[in-house]
């Protein structure tokens, strides 16, 4: 309902503006009139710069990874919705165990499944403690810029010192899951959907 009220207000503003122009009057000195110049920028979001993540899990990795093998990608989310760059995000992918490992990869040779987690952080410098724990069925709302980041004012985050990215995703494969899985190459595709709140 809030959104509907906002839209009505915007239309009312322009309805008034459409009649604002006036002609100049005939005068022996000078002639004066008015007109409006306007632009309406609609709310928009865009994600760009996602990279593939490749992990190798071997005895050395298992011995030194503190319980989870992780990989991450940094990318850019542009949002002009408000000054904070607010947006909603959902990460879609094959289902995992539905519990602590919500996403799953499929073994190419043996067809098994390797479950994993997805963490989302709205800063390029991933924070494993504060990150959002994602599930395929859940859209996280009101993500925005944090930790002093400025809103991206270009669609590729090349502005405001962002260096091309202002968000990150971390993939985590717990050692228990990796050890339980058959030796194989597991692949999957995650789809990151950002939307206007």
């Amino acid at each position, binding site marked *: 309902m809030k959104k509907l009220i906002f839209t009505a207000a*915007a239309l009312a503003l322009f309805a008034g503006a459409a009649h604002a*122009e006036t002609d100049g009057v005939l005068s022996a000195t000078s*002639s004066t*009139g008015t*007109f409006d*110049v*306007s*632009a309406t*920028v609609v709310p*928009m979001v865009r994600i760009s710069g996602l990279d593939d993540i490749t992990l190798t899990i071997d005895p050395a990795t298992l011995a030194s990874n503190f319980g989870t093998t992780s990989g991450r990608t940094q990318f850019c989310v542009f949002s002009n919705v408000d000054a904070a760059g607010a947006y909603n995000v959902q990460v879609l992918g094959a289902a995992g165990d539905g519990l602590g490992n919500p996403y799953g990869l499929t073994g190419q040779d043996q067809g098994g499944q390797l479950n994993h987690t997805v963490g989302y952080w709205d800063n390029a410098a991933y924070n494993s403690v504060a990150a959002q724990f994602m599930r395929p069925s859940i859209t996280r709302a009101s993500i925005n810029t944090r930790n002093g980041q400025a809103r991206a004012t270009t669609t590729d985050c090349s502005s405001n010192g962002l260096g091309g990215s202002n968000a990150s995703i971390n993939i985590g494969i717990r050692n228990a899951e990796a050890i339980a899985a058959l030796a194989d190459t597991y692949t999957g595709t995650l789809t990151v959907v950002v939307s206007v709140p």
Partner: protein
Amino acid sequence: MKASQLLAAVTAVVLAGPALAEETRQESQRPHATVRLLSAPQGANRWYGVGDTVSKVQLCVESNTGRFAMNLAPQVGTPDASSPGEIEVVFATTTGERVVRQWDGKTDMAFTGRVAGQTCGVAGNVSLEFRIKQQNLIAVVAGDYINQMRFSVDPA
């Protein structure tokens, strides 16, 4: 009224006749200019992320000197800080003048031009184009940005 008084009054009127005509002639020769707005942007100028936005205004300017000075004054002198920072303004006349200015949306602008004859076609003889470039639009927060411009024309 005596005959002599009547003669004096008639003489005065007769003498005043050429003087009044001369004053009227001088009045018509005094520099003057008028402007009419033929077309202006109507309704919302919505932008969806691609290309520039352009608002065009067509005017009919008449000046008995053949030259005029146009002043443009924004009525909102301090736009929202997040509004598009730079607007390209193109002033053009049918006599061949074309001036391009970068405008900050806050300050007054002045142009001078020439007009030929006293009549305008449907497209007028002076146009103003306000172009906001894509890179400036992508940088602002979503919303309605509007300013009212007051224009005046003086003979030059």
